[in-house]
């Protein structure tokens, strides 16, 4: 393999792909990134057998601003950590890479690195996915779906299904749901694009989606999503993102939404978030980060105390309140996560009682819902 490439193009590709390089593994080869060049393009990929990322840089010889000139095709696996640090620090905007056997010689300006590589034939190949069926979303919409839900996935490997986000496509809507069995986040969107799927349910690892959200652009680039029996493929621009799906059945979450409410609150999301964050400062040390919320028709009182440190009380005024007065205790982190996702608009909270879940959503928008289970007062 012999080629000349623009440093920035190479660096961006390496940084995106590097998210699929594991931090700890028993297989040395997985610490590497695979570079493969044919006459048209350079393919850069990494695959830890859970997440795989591949990105292509095309050679455009007719263009004045050609990012890549390939003189001889070939491939090599290079250690991800070193190759990225090296490329980042190279002195000139152009890089020449010459590969002989399993050694890469990287030239830029007056610097020459000779980097020992690994055998590309030993590198695992990415899953093969047929791309005929799938649906298309805008990158920023997909990012929003992920960011509004992914924080609620469970961290405990005891129940693998709950460490993933449930993607559900049905009758023109796509929904993402995540729950750790104490709280739940769900975002639904309407899609009018015709798709190849009748209805679909897939559990995608939360970790994969967190990484995906970091590499998809923050604009209206179109993103194609393909789901097979056990693999997800998301493709956009020149990049392909693969993830294993979690096997098993996701619990039925439709039934855990309470159907009748005893109190209803409308409040400015930003005010409430600031107030909860202040109260949370003193709740950090207790086990469930418990704060108390006293709901009264005229005002809301948020308080928390820590026996060794001290206590805080703050009142906020709701825009409106109806129903019974009530004392709720809940995990401050859950509330903060949900309020951050909901943003600064007016939000609506429906309470069912001390021992059952309350529901938060944007006023007049029931597509973005958060459900939180209070902590029982007796337990504090």
């Amino acid at each position: 393999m012999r080629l000349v490439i623009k440093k920035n193009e190479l660096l961006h590709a390496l940084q995106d792909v590097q998210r699929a390089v594991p931090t700890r593994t028993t297989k040395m080869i997985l610490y590497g990134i695979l570079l493969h060049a044919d006459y048209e393009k350079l393919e850069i990929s990494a695959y830890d057998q859970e997440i795989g990322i591949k990105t292509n840089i095309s050679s455009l010889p007719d263009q004045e601003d050609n990012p890549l000139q390939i003189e001889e095709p070939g491939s090599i696996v290079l250690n991800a950590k070193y190759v990225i640090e090296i490329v980042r620090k190279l002195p000139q905007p152009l890089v020449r890479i010459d590969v002989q056997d399993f050694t890469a010689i990287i030239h830029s300006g007056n610097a020459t690195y000779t980097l020992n590589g690994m055998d590309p034939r030993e590198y695992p190949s990415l899953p093969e996915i047929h791309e005929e069926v799938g649906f298309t979303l805008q990158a920023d919409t997909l990012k929003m779906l992920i960011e509004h839900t992914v924080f609620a996935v469970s961290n405990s490997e005891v129940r693998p299904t709950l460490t993933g986000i449930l993607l559900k496509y049905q009758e023109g809507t796509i929904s993402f749901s995540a729950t750790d069995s104490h709280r739940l986040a769900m975002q639904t969107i309407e899609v009018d694009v015709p798709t190849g799927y009748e209805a679909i349910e897939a559990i995608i690892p939360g970790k994969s989606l967190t990484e995906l959200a970091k590499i998809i652009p923050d604009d209206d680039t179109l993103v194609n999503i393909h789901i097979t029996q056990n693999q997800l493929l998301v493709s956009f621009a020149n990049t392909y993102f693969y993830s294993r799906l979690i096997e098993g059945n996701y619990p039925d979450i439709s039934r855990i939404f309470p159907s009748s409410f005893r109190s209803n609150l409308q409040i400015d999301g930003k005010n409430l978030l600031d107030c909860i964050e202040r109260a949370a400062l003193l709740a950090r040390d207790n086990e469930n980060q418990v704060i108390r919320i006293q709901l009264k028709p005229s005002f809301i009182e948020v308080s928390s105390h820590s026996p060794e440190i001290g206590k805080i009380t703050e009142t906020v005024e709701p825009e409106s309140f109806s129903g019974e007065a009530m004392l709720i205790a809940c995990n401050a982190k859950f509330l903060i996560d949900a309020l951050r996702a909901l943003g600064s608009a007016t939000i609506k909270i429906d309470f069912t009682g001390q021992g059952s879940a309350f529901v938060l959503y944007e006023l007049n928008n029931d597509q973005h819902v958060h459900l939180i289970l209070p902590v029982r007062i007796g337990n504090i």
Partner: protein
Amino acid sequence: MVDKQELFQRVELLQDQIGHFYQEIGALKLLLNELLEENQNLMVENANLRDRVGFGEEEKTTPGEAKKYLRDLYEDGFHICNINYGSLRKGDCLFCLESLQRT
């Protein structure tokens, strides 16, 4: 004399095998952990149940009683939802509460 290349390949093979072995042990250890935890929970649960029914007494359950047992079990700190039945519970669980309401 043993071929050096072959020796190297054998060592490499061994390294791979040790890698697999290591993963296997890791997986088994996790499994053992789960089993031990489950065993402990079952022992506690069993003792509680024995206490409650009185050892040796005939057990008779009626629909109302089953629900009560589930509720007691939940109050004693165990999951009763189908996702995680019988494991130790930290805080309340949305799915358990849903099951309790339904029964």
